[in-house]
């Protein structure tokens, strides 16, 4: 301060400014405000659909709110938890945490080596204290106090002429607190590694069958995934080689009762090989029972139906044959799908429509009455002409490009609808060909993911919990017993020639210690004789 005489008062040097900022940032109050900000910042993501959770919901929301969408996009409200502002909150919190914890580690290390502090001058000023008089020698009282306290407290070594015993316990509380806060950092590290290096991919796999022996297989390369969501630092060589085949899939449907139509169990029997030429192994893939292959986990997360059709073109040649996955629209498993026969002559044939697992006509409306494929039926519209299959651009297998196609009509000019059940063959109008419904195969949707760092994160929370319990349940206490000879005041016998004072300090301030005081006094008096209470300041 003296080096800068011309500085006006109130002005701060850059260094002081920095130090001031740092102190503010690492203060308890800032930590608290940041914690509350973190809670507040997490709210929008629970109200607004998040692209990382449900991208379909996001696009629906965007369609419904065209004017709000750009604003929301600017604020990253569709991916709150990856947004700059949310990251800023938790990074500040981490910074504050480090700035808070590191100095406390040093303080704690020093305190570990320190002795329990000497008794304050006036013990009875402490809120939880008691005193009594006895005819015993002060030294005898102190010796017994050492014995009594040594059982539960770490004692300050006796020094000549102290006249008191000092003990301490529960320093693990601070250790627990530090462990907790450090573990928060470990969890964040594990979480971060997962977000950066992990991946998650999904693929729809139609069960293998006699009709389709090539179905049901998956080998772990990028091109085999339907969708793939890698972390920022993912590299394809993380995909460890393995392959598997879905050989059978079954659903245990509830057939009766209030929840009839709810599925109770799903079971995919799969055969898998590790590496490129490992031995074939078998696994029952079920919900809650993923298959782990190396670092990669395979989960069963969805299922549906794939009608098997054969389409013959106008020349009688097979233009398409096989199963096609249809997407369930709701819990009834009414499913939507498209089938494209590119090589059909004279014109390409496209089918688009619905699959009914258990078809009924109720009041003239086609419905499905049960989600299991008990009485399947298809109801599809037919298109021909240019289905956009040859222009080389990528196309979704679940969407039919009808822009340049013509809908196939009946002779009366109304749209032709292909209503068909397994085993039937229906001729298409205009000599386009015929469609045969051969049967239905189930498909499963499998999620394949690596979550590196998950063990680190788990270890982190477990450590955090241990630290937390230490921090919340260990009761840090200091205890002092002082004994000193006193003179009878004005010749009046006040009960004894030695005054004993006991005080206990709960350092967390969260626990009542009056009973502890009482207990110690009792133990001290229990073996003494002829003592009378002097004063007591116990809380009721």
């Amino acid at each position: 301060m003296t080096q800068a005489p011309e500085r006006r008062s109130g002005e701060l040097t850059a260094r002081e400014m920095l130090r001031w900022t740092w102190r503010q940032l690492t203060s308890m109050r800032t930590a608290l405000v940041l914690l509350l900000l973190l809670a507040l910042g997490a709210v929008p993501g629970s109200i607004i659909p998040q692209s990382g959770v449900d991208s379909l919901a996001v696009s629906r929301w965007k369609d419904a709110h065209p004017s709000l969408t750009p604003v929301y996009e600017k604020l990253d409200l569709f991916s709150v938890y990856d947004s700059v502002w949310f990251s800023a909150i938790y990074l500040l919190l981490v910074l504050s945490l480090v700035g808070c914890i590191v100095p406390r580690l040093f303080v704690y290390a020093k305190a570990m080596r320190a002795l329990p502090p000497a008794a304050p001058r006036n013990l009875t000023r402490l809120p939880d204290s008691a005193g009594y008089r006895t005819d015993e020698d002060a030294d005898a009282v102190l010796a017994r106090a050492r014995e009594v306290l040594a059982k539960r407290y770490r004692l300050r070594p006796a020094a000549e002429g102290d006249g008191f015993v000092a003990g301490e316990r529960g320093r693990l509380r601070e250790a627990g607190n530090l462990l907790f806060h450090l573990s928060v950092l470990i969890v964040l590290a594990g979480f971060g590694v997962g977000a950066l290096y992990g991946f998650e991919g999904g693929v729809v796999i139609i069960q293998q069958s006699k009709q389709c022996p090539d179905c049901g297989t998956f080998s772990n390369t990028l091109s085999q995934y339907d969708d793939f969501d890698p972390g920022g630092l993912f590299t394809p060589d993380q995909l460890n080689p393995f392959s598997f085949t879905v050989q059978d899939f079954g659903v245990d449907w509830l057939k009766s009762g209030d929840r009839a139509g709810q599925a109770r169990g799903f079971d995919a029997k799969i055969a898998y090989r590790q590496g490129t030429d490992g031995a074939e192994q078998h696994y029952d893939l079920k919900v809650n029972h993923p298959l782990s292959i190396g670092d990669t986990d395979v989960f069963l997360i969805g299922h549906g139906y794939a009608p098997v059709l054969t389409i013959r073109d106008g020349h009688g040649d097979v233009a398409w044959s096989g199963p096609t996955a249809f997407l369930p629209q709701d819990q009834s498993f009414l499913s939507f799908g498209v089938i494209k026969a590119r090589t059909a002559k004279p014109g390409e044939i496209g089918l688009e429509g619905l699959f009914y697992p258990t078809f009924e006509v109720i009041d003239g409306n086609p419905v499905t009455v049960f989600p299991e494929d008990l009485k399947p039926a298809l109801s599809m519209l037919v298109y021909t002409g240019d289905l956009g299959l040859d222009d080389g651009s990528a196309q979704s297998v679940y969407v039919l490009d009808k822009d340049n196609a013509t809908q196939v009509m009946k002779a009366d000019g109304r749209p032709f609808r292909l209503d068909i059940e397994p085993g039937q063959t229906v001729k298409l109008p205009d000599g386009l060909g015929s469609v045969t419904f051969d049967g239905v195969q189930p498909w499963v949707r499998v999620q394949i993911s690596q979550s590196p760092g998950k063990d680190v994160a788990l270890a982190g929370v477990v450590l955090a919990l241990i630290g937390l319990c230490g921090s919340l349940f260990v009761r840090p206490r200091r205890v002092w017993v002082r004994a000193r000879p006193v003179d009878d005041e004005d010749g009046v016998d006040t009960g004894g020639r030695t005054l004993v004072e006991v005080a206990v300090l709960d350092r967390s301030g969260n626990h009542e210690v009056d009973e502890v005081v009482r207990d110690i006094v009792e133990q001290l008096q229990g073996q003494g004789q002829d003592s009378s209470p002097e004063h007591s300041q116990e809380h009721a």
Partner: protein
Amino acid sequence: MSNAAWETLSNQAVGAAGIVYFLALLAHLAEWASLRQPKGTEKRVAVGSAGLAEVAPAPTTRETERAEFLGRLGFLLTVIAAVAHAVSLVGRGMAGDPNRVPWGNMYEFTLTGSCLVTVMYLVLYRRLRLSWMAPLVLGFVLTVLMAARLWLYEPVAPLTEALNSYWLMIHVTAAIIATGAFTLGGIASAVYLVKMRAQSRLPEGAELTGFLARVPTLDGLDRVAYRVHAFAFPVWTFAVLITGPIWAHQAWSRYWNWDPKEVWAFITWVVYAGYLHARATAGWKGRNAALLALLGVATLWWNFIGVNFFAGNNSQHSYADRPPAVVGPYDVRG
């Protein structure tokens, strides 16, 4: 016993528990009433530590005896009600085929959660001297029980596949225990705030009367609230940040999805971390900390009620709608 018989037993037990809770509430109200005295006849004795003497009216011996009897009666009735309450849970579990944990839907979750509030109160009754809390706890549990029976009732049904997991069982058990404890802590914090407000409005030299005079001192309330929260917080941590993610990982391949239910569980966790901090932060102790505790309870119950109803299918955890069977709609980006 057949499944239907178990279900009937459960329904009857809920009814019985409701009635006995009500009787217990009456006993405690009578206890309070019998301690009220016409003004002027009160003698006052000082209890509490020197200096901070808390002054309470000293009733006559006969009145004290009657009040003590009513208090004991209320406690006993609460125990009986809690047993009936527990029987109703067992009945729900045994009525399922196969037998299962009694928290497959919101009705059962509410039933179990409110039972845990009572059990926790009974367990801590002596340790934390909670007798003053009796009317509040009973009123709360009774209200929740009636609401559950009226609006949330559902017949017994099997658990869906994704809910059928050991980890989930542990997860939900811990979450329910923590919910019960946080609720108790919230009650203590609410009383703290009410008492603080009432005290600050008293004219110079006047003293509180009635219920507020008989609850512990502000410091005592703060400490009770803290100790209940200090128990609940690690349990919540275990439920939300350990077992929850383990289960989520098994069921959905991601241990943390940021789905609304998880987000709110996280918010609750952070708010309570804030509460624990606030108790150690100058300027936040006392009133603000208690407000944070109430905010915590609000987020907790909002997560249970609000998110279930409003997020519906948005949340994979939703109990309100059909549970998370593996079905579409799919996010097919193919």
